[in-house]
């Protein structure tokens, strides 16, 4: 018989958002060493590799990513009435249908086609600072990098890059720690994004081009098509899911290499290690440290009964440090032999990151360009990090120096 989760003695994870990320991670990883499960402010957290995988792969746990606003006490009617199915929180057949229709646009092959454009984008951004030997690399390279790529993918014009970047950042504040205060800004950004996206779609309907929006309009399987609302949602999901994630992941990567110059040297001397380096960076320091699910029915797992409605956080940042899967997890080592089990930073199960091939290609191209162009990379000041919320994490400022070429 499974024991109801409420009757079990469990460690609890305090909220303490004013902790630094490293303090919070240390605490979580310490807790994970003793218990796969912990209590948190909204429900429970799974902390080990196996349990994070177990929850993310179990279809009875549904995505709660559409509920974060309500969980933080927001009950704004205008907002709640706008909430509709997104690929990020759809389940069952609705979800499979959406993913199948958009999948060809996100296959490894599609991502590979954009690699030359990715290289060109990093090179151009880096040109502006190359001769100085110094950069605030977040501002100069990481922040702008994903925008042209997502615009190129979608087919949005260059004039829109700035607008696009701002909207993506503002919409994502919903996963930040300060929802009550930022809420009006978020709603305004969502509305603006929707109007903008509808404009893009209308343009492509009248003038098809070689881009994702045209593909999505055409995406069709046995007579089935995305309707306008679904199209808008998909384009928004790409804008929102594909920008802040990539830029923060690249920022975290450069911070790691600046702090581990010997690893940067290893990479510079053997660029065939780039794909492995990307996986190790994501394992060691993922931009998305967790996600959230709720029990769609009573669920028994590991001898514990979770009643219907239970909220569960899945802690990728502790699962990625699980010594039973990754030997010497605290060592950042880009030559690490693959263990046959992937890191958790791109998720798992049916909601596994749709943009994974694209994200990997973006990071791989950026690593190989920057490794060649930034010999002797080192920190040139203090790295400042964004506040640790439940959302996307990365450096807000990263001053570096390197040998100018």
């Amino acid at each position: 018989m499974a024991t109801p989760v409420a009757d079990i003695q469990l460690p609890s994870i305090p909220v303490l958002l004013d902790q630094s990320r490293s303090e919070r991670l240390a605490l979580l990883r310490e807790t994970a060493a003793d218990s796969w499960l912990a209590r948190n402010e909204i429900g429970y957290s799974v902390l080990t590799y196996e349990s994070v995988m177990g929850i993310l792969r179990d279809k009875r746990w549904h995505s709660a990513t559409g509920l974060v606003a309500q969980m933080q006490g927001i009950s704004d009617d205008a907002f709640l009435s706008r909430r509709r199915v997104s690929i990020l929180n759809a389940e069952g057949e609705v979800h499979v249908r959406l993913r199948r229709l958009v999948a060809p646009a996100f296959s490894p092959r599609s991502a590979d086609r954009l690699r030359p454009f990715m290289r060109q984008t990093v090179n151009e951004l880096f040109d502006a600072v190359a001769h100085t030997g110094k950069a605030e690399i977040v501002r100069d390279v990481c922040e702008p990098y994903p925008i042209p790529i997502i615009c190129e993918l979608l087919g949005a014009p260059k004039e829109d890059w700035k607008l696009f970047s701002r909207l993506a950042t503002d919409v994502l504040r919903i996963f930040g720690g300060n929802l009550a205060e930022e809420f009006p800004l978020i709603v305004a950004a969502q509305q603006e994004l929707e109007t903008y996206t509808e404009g893009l779609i209308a343009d492509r309907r009248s003038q098809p081009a070689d881009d994702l929006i045209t593909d999505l309009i055409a995406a069709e399987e046995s007579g089935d098509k995305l309707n306008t609302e679904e199209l808008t949602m998909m384009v928004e999901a790409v804008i929102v899911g594909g920008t802040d994630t990539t830029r923060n992941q690249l920022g975290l990567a450069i911070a790691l290499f600046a702090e581990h110059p010997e690893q940067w040297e290893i990479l510079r001397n053997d660029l065939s290690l780039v794909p492995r380096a990307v996986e190790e960076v994501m394992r060691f320091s993922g931009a998305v440290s967790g996600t959230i699910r709720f029990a769609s029915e009573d669920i028994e797992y590991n001898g514990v009964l979770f009643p219907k409605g239970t909220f569960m956080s899945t802690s990728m940042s502790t699962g990625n440090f699980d010594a039973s899967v990754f030997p010497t997890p605290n060592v950042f080592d880009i030559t690490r032999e693959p263990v046959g089990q992937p890191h958790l930073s791109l998720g798992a199960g049916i909601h596994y990151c749709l943009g994974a091939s694209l994200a990997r290609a973006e990071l791989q191209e950026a690593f190989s360009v920057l490794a060649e162009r930034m010999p002797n990379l080192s920190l040139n000041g203090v790295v400042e990090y964004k506040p640790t919320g439940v959302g996307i994490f990365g450096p807000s400022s990263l001053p570096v120096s390197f040998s100018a070429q």
Partner: protein
Amino acid sequence: MKVTVDFDICASTGACTQIAPEVFEIRTDGYLYILQENPTGANEELARQAADLCPTAAITIEE
């Protein structure tokens, strides 16, 4: 049993390789490869589970 994958739709998520590592593999090029097109024994059930969990329903099983 015969396993096929629609490679236009496969997103290399690795869900199948985790569940049925003897049937599916993702190589360093990032692409998925089928190791056993006609799995037998325990791998038959694992292949079915993998097909069920594939986010894009790219795997087809013919019994």
